[in-house]
């Protein structure tokens, strides 16, 4: 019923509906431009959304995130360059189909799979978030602190190629969050006598610096080299452009498996679409009857990863809505928008701002259909246009939009300077294999974690002993220990096997 009200709100508010349509179109375009991710686009657009109503703002950014994941498949299929890391596995069979003159078939396969995968993930979000929120209503500060620690360590340990660098990235983000007023005593910390730092760093300049400016800095060399050969976008015959019913039936099991894998991975904080697409590709290939054709242009090889990377979108919002803990970069940015509009995220959000949450769910469902239509009918056209616009024109324009957006958030030139500095920090982090997303998520999580810890200790005379009396907290403390243990054990086994092969 609430979901129906959400649909009614969207369809009866032209402004919100307009932002959903714009989000779907912009997301597909942004995702299709190699090097420009949905996260970067959302980072630039967050300040703009401060000027519109909360539902329109959240719907706009949420739909960009969804459509951006799908958009990455367009450049992956047409140009052999994934627009986003989420489409990295789609390149393998998608571009092989393009080389056979079946670009249209590959794009339509990606569209159908993305849409189905995204709907599965969205329904899991709609039913899962409310259920988990009802279960977590009675949790206290000690349990919340354990959840924060769990999120920190899981994100840190899985988001980067190196567990150590991933955790160091989260600690760096948490350290940045310590700048500003103390959450309990309101005493200033690390402000170095600067009035601008009295309230701490604003999220927007950090986002713009680490996601957008650092990306522009790294794109100078590839853009100077010029765009690579774009391959053929044209199809050789009608069959190469069409996706028949029998082919749709053939890919459905792979779409289903991909959606299942993507949804499960989406629930784990920090893992994301890039991992989901490769896990789905590998698992589906192992079970495929035609596995010899995979890598040479099998439509199933496009369907599985595309379904998985979009199925991540919905479940990755569950920790944010049910617990107030963002599990992904996009969720962290949306949390910023929620807070700016005075909406407290967490288990009570369904009571306090249910209309907005169900409106957001409805916007997600509408957005999926919209980017599906855009992809089905306009995918090749968008690909052709992006191929014609030189990247050396796109990036300087993005640089100017990013800097002006950084100013827009608080009308502060200090924020623009901070964005520039964090652009350089983000450049170092990217090239030295640290994780800017982990740092940003930790930056958002850290104040809540500190508050929860300090409240927990005040609740009892036992000090830190309170955590031993809370079963929920103990479970959440144990999860990351197990996850890191499994990863280190796996690495040691891999090294042993490698040594054995060499000898």
């Amino acid at each position, binding site marked *: 019923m609430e979901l129906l009200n959400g649909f009614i709100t969207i369809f009866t508010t032209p402004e919100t509906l307009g932002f959903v349509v714009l989000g779907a179109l912009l997301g597909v375009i942004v995702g299709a431009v190699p090097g420009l991710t949905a996260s970067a686009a959302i980072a630039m657009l967050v300040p703009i959304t401060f000027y519109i109503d909360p539902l329109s703002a959240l719907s706009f950014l949420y739909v960009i995130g969804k459509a951006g994941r799908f958009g990455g498949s367009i450049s992956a299929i047409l140009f052999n360059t994934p627009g986003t890391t989420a489409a990295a596995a789609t390149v393998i069979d998608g571009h092989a189909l393009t080389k056979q003159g079946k670009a249209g078939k590959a794009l339509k396969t990606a569209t159908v799979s993305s849409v189905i995968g995204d709907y599965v993930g969205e329904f899991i979000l709609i039913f899962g978030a409310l259920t988990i929120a009802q279960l977590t209503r009675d949790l206290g500060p000690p349990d919340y602190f354990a959840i924060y620690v769990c999120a920190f360590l899981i994100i840190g340990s899985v988001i980067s190629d190196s567990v150590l660098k991933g955790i160091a990235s989260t600690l760096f983000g948490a350290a940045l969050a310590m700048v500003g007023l103390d959450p309990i005593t309101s005493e200033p910390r690390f402000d170095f006598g600067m009035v601008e730092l009295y309230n701490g760093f604003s999220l927007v300049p950090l986002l713009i610096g680490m996601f957008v400016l650092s990306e522009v800095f790294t794109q100078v060399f590839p853009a100077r080299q010029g765009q690579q050969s774009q391959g053929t976008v044209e199809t050789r015959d009608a069959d190469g452009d069409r996706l028949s019913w029998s082919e749709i039936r053939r890919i459905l099991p792979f779409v289903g498996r991909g959606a299942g894998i993507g949804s499960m991975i989406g629930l784990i904080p920090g893992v994301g679409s890039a991992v989901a697409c490769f896990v789905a590709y590998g698992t589906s290939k192992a079970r495929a009857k035609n596995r010899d054709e995979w890598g040479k242009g099998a439509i199933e090889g496009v369907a599985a990863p595309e379904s998985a990377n979009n199925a991540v979108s919905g479940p990755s919002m569950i920790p944010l809505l049910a617990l107030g803990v963002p599990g992904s970069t996009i969720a962290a940015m949306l949390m910023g928008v929620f807070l700016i509009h005075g909406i407290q995220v967490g288990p009570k959000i369904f009571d306090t701002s249910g209309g907005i949450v169900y409106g957001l769910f409805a916007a997600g469902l509408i957005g999926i259909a919209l980017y599906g239509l855009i992809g089905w009918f306009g995918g090749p056209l968008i690909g052709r246009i992006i191929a014609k616009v030189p990247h050396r024109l796109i990036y300087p324009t993005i640089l100017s939009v990013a800097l002006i957006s950084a100013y827009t958030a608080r009308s502060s030139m200090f924020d623009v300077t901070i964005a*520039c500095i964090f652009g350089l920090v983000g450049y170092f982090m990217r*090239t030295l294999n640290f994780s800017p997303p982990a740092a940003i998520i930790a930056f958002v999580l850290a104040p809540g974690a500190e508050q929860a810890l300090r409240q927990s200790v005040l609740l009892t005379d036992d000090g830190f002993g309170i955590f031993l009396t809370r079963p929920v907290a103990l479970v959440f403390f144990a999860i990351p220990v197990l996850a890191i243990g499994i990863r280190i054990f796996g690495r040691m086994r891999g090294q042993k096997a490698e040594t054995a092969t060499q000898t």
Partner: protein
Amino acid sequence: MQTAEGRTSVARETARHNVVTGLALVVLAAFFFWNSYSISLDFVDEEGIGPRFFPQAIAVVLGILGLILAGSGVLGRAAPADKTSFEARRFWLDAVPLFLLSLVFVWLFKSFGYLVATLILIAVGLLVFSARGRALWLTPPIAAILLYLVFFRLMRIYEPPAAIFNPLTFLS
């Protein structure tokens, strides 16, 4: 396919980078830890955790991780998938000019307002990205006007007064 020699070279380079970044993390952690002592304890209760605890805990763990990273780098060890791509040449030729250009934009915006700052930012940005010909002359004014309309007219963002001279005030 990368050769064994290529892989060794990347691993060696990654280890070298890890030594430097590990030490940088230690310095950063020490800086945070040292500065945490300037946090006032005037309003802290006897019970509970004070405002210095969390920053100091983060600094200690960050410092330890930095030491492990630097130590592993010295021993030539790194996680198998850990491959850095930092190149000093690319940093100085690509990132530094754009970083400085962004800082110049901030100064120009404060001194001469939006229009001059944005025109120069986009034009010099295009030069850094090696754009030449008509695009170099057409993109800056078109983009600057479009962005002005979106940000300062449509969204009504406040444009700060220029410290020296804003040509837009003259135009209007």
